[in-house]
């Protein structure tokens, strides 16, 4: 027994060393840099500046805009994705001809890399030659072409729409997996008793899939809070859509201000931590580890 336990630690060691090297240490350095004036060119020649970087952040309206964008993006897109995902999962769970085909079609957006989907939608939303403008004008819904990704009022909704397209399949798949684990006899009984389908859904289905649903929502929310690729490719460093990750990277790499950028990145970690704690306590999410 003791031999097995010793072997277990030996087996864990390589993985732990690698994780500490690629995650633990870099995270520690980022937090450390956030209290310095380090720049990209002088990574080993810097001075401590205390909380200065954080104080500057608090006074930067662009930062607050990024925080706002990120929160709006996360709440709205995850909300829509959950509702749509639930609907699609229910349809996929029903017995209908061509279910396999439908499932395959729904998987396509998920299989496409984010950068590719951002470019595809960027082209579709193109102000002059985009198919979206052409269709909407053809239907008479708009009178003249819109600059979807350049218009500050439209850009964030466009980014959210693209994310909904890409991520709803993931949500639908996770919910579908939960739906398929539900005991059938409960539904038999409800059907025999003549309970209305809506009531069955609210009283039986929803409570039973709630744990899985909450985990899926938590995973998607954390994903949405750290979003980077989508904004960067679709709208660049535009302020109207800039997320916290885009803001942090812009300072870290483009402006080479490692100290300031690290402070922004550290705050993002804090936001994620708060979101996780909130979800786990309020939503009573259980992530099973160790059993």
């Amino acid at each position, binding site marked *: 027994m003791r031999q097995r*336990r010793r*072997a*277990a630690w030996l*087996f864990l060691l*390589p*993985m*732990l060393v*690698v994780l500490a*090297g690629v*995650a633990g*240490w*870099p*995270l520690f350095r980022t937090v450390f840099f956030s209290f310095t004036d*380090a720049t*990209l060119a002088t990574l080993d020649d810097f001075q401590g500046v205390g909380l200065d970087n954080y104080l500057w952040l608090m006074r930067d309206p662009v930062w607050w805009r990024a925080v706002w964008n990120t929160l709006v993006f996360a709440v709205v897109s995850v909300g829509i994705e959950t509702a749509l995902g639930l609907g*699609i999962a229910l*349809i996929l769970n029903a017995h*209908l001809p061509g279910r396999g*085909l439908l*499932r*395959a*079609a*729904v998987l396509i*957006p998920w*299989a*496409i*890399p984010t*950068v590719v*989907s951002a*470019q*595809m*939608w960027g*082209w*579709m939303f193109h102000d*002059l*030659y985009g198919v979206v403008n052409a269709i909407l004008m053809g239907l008479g819904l708009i009178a003249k072409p819109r600059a979807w990704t350049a218009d500050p009022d439209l850009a964030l909704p466009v980014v959210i729409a693209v994310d909904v*397209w890409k991520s709803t399949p*993931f949500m639908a*798949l*996770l919910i579908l997996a939960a739906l398929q684990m539900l005991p059938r006899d409960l539904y038999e009984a409800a059907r025999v008793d003549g309970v209305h389908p809506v009531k069955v859904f609210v009283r039986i289905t929803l409570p039973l899939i709630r*744990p*899985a649903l909450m*985990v899926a929502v938590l*995973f998607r929310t954390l994903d949405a809070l750290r979003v*980077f*690729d989508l904004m960067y490719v679709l709208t660049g460093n535009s302020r109207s859509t800039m997320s916290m*990750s885009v803001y942090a*990277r812009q300072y*870290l*790499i483009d402006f080479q201000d*490692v100290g300031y*950028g*690290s402070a922004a*990145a550290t705050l*993002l*970690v804090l936001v*994620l931590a708060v979101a996780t704690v909130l979800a786990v306590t309020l939503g009573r999410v*259980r*992530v099973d*580890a160790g059993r």
Partner: protein
Amino acid sequence: MVGLRRIAFALVVLGIVAWAVFPFAWAIVTSLKAGSALFTVEAWPSQPSLANYAAIFREQPFGRNILNSLMAASAVVALSLVLAVLAAYALGRVRFRGRGLLLFVVLGVSMFPQVAVLSGLFELVRWLGLYNRIGSLVLSYLIFTLPFTVWVLTTFMRELPKELEEAAMVDGAGPFVIVTRVFLPLMGPALAATGLLAFIAAWNEFLFALTFTLTDDARTVPVAIALMSGASQYELPWGQIMAASVVVTVPLIGLVLLFQRRIVSGLTAGAVKG
């Protein structure tokens, strides 16, 4: 009444399919348009041409980019699987103190934002002399492939029958022999599914690849597609961008459709537990 409801349902299903498939279909249509045809909105090009596909391999270093992505993703998947199989045995089959905590830490690593490790990793990459090399990507991608593979393989290891291990122990096999000779042969499907998902994640990664590579020699496919530019700065070569998008996406869609059952079970094992 029943007929009407059935028609409405069919329309909803059709709408979902159209919504899911249309953007990619439009990318294919665009990629077949050459020259000024690109700037007319038509459902099918009057003169379909493969010029854009030829151009990405001739005018752009897209072949090189694909090779880079293949190398980085394969290396990181191989490395992750080796490390994860060993770790999964320990986490899935041996009882020891701190096991639950360890699993949470591993899960936690896969959760935190990539940008949070950017400056620390940048320093590490430069210190190791890996800047603008594929090695920097292999190193940084481990941060998300490793927790994922460890978590999924641990779940899988746990389900394997106890008797197998006991029989091997009676025969005097040590833990290493048990993992490599008894469990590994049974794990083929799990390794394939996890490896594939990790491969896709590494293939699609953008932030690290954008930050740790500078020149075309080291660029991966997503970065190349994001930064593809034409003759002038203001004119994006949309036809070529769409052709490149189609080239990298078709194999992915093929793989996903081929392995869809396993992928769904892999995703749920990795994500939903509870």
